[in-house]
């Protein structure tokens, strides 16, 4: 493919393309020669398949995600809608505190909607959220899964907590706002999930 690469992530390359007249991106998972082919091909296949399913399901539970155009599991390729907006990672440190609170609250609500349907994103960082006209979109479900356990929901939020602490450390209230949104929109016992996060933190080394 000769399309322009807009992002090279750890496991995939994202290129812009045109799909039947629409602006689209191709997410192509790249084989990694550092790992043996048995592991590599099974990871690429399973993640491509799982990611496509999760993106489709996330949409059906009211979380904004890119529209899926085409999926090729064997080649590890997904073609989806191009989202023109801002990565939350790039703007969260510079917007006003009020706006930051609003965005974080929205993040919490969206994660809760995913969790209400037992969808686990698996890599909730601000690099994986795009704000388009004040609507928060989630991308990159490559490490996601469907799981009913409280533990996975806790781990999902814990990943976000660490991402916020490391990338947006000068704004320490971000995660608190996220939890406010989460608690509001989560249909189960949100406190149980919050306790789980504390458990996970304690379980970590040197806490």
């Amino acid at each position, binding site marked *: 493919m000769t399309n322009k690469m807009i992002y090279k992530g*750890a496991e995939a390359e994202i290129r812009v393309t045109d799909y039947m007249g629409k602006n689209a991106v191709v997410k192509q998972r790249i084989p990694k*020669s*550092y790992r043996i082919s048995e592991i590599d091909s099974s990871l690429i296949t399973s993640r491509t398949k799982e990611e496509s399913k999760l993106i489709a399901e996330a949409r059906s539970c009211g979380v904004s995600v890119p529209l899926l155009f085409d999926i090729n599991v064997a080649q590890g390729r997904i073609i989806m809608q191009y989202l023109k907006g801002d990565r939350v990672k790039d703007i969260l440190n510079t917007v006003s505190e009020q706006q930051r609170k609003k965005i974080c609250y929205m993040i919490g609500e969206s994660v809760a909607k995913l969790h209400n349907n037992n969808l686990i994103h*698996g890599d909730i960082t601000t690099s994986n959220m795009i704000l388009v006209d004040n609507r928060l979109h989630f991308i990159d479900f490559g490490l996601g899964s469907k799981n009913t356990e409280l533990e996975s929901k806790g781990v999902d939020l814990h*990943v976000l907590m660490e991402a916020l602490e490391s990338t947006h450390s000068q704004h320490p209230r971000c995660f608190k706002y996220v939890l406010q949104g989460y608690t509001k929109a989560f249909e189960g016992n949100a406190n149980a999930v919050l306790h789980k996060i504390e458990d996970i933190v304690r*379980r970590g080394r040197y806490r």
Partner: protein
Amino acid sequence: MISVGIEGTAHSIGSGIVKNVNGSCHVLSNIIKTYHPKKGGIHTREAANHHAEHLADVIAQSVKQAHLSYSDIDLISFSQGPGLGPCLRTTATAARALSLSIEKPLIGVNHCVAHLEIGRGTLDACTDPVLLYTSGANTQVIAFAEGKYRVFGETLDIGIGNCLDKFGRGIGLEFPSGPKLEKLALQGTEYLELPYSIKGMDIAFSGLLTAAEQLVAKKKRIEDICYSIQETAFAALTEVTERAMAHTEKSEVLLGGGVASNKRLRSMVETMAQERNASFFVPAQDLCIDNGAMIAWLGFLMYDSGVRMTLEESSINQRFRTDMVEVTWRD
């Protein structure tokens, strides 16, 4: 400035002496002595006794090998944590005693940060790396961001070295079993599937350990199991490191810790680095494992940037986290 560093967080004690030459670290001596348990893993009290017995000697050797006398030393650094309590206390006691007797300042440093700084200090082209720090107890992906060394990914349960050691102990290998397991893995021919557990940039090994032990119970070939453990665990480590590099947009990767001696892990991370056009660094073998020189160097960097520590502030911290360190010596 001549800085002596005393290490003793776990099964090894070390005393190293370094000198700053235009901002890079010159190692004058680096003596390491390791406690070998008669059976099983590290027994903390016995390890601490071992350290107490040999520390004075190790320090004396390091001074002698550097062709110095005690009066040439300007600073005493020691590893304040994280680590095993009794070992840390023994090390800290030795450092305090040395500081009081030669009347030179004392600085306690973070062991994990020292692993990263020794890479920057001794490898010229290594300036702003993502460190994959893999040892018995520790498995962390560390990088500098927003004024601190932050942990971008780490194990959610046990360290990779601990995982290898526990498996090795089960099949009768002596501690530390990593190197023996590496040899066995070379004779592996068939990949047996094991759990590959990555959560964001974090990683977990206990499921892999249990599954590997089940393969032993099923009488699968030991060489194949060792091969599969290494391939799975190291691929996962390489992947989280690459994720952290993509996330932090850094183009250098540095290895540190005892497990970084493993050739397969090295080659995986090196291949990953090549494929991303990133630079790959490993410190010299004796600076990669637990050692005093890295402690001496970090102590120097801290002291040089104005950090001072009173005797009262020198108490150890078993749970000294990487991101608790105020980084005063770099922007």
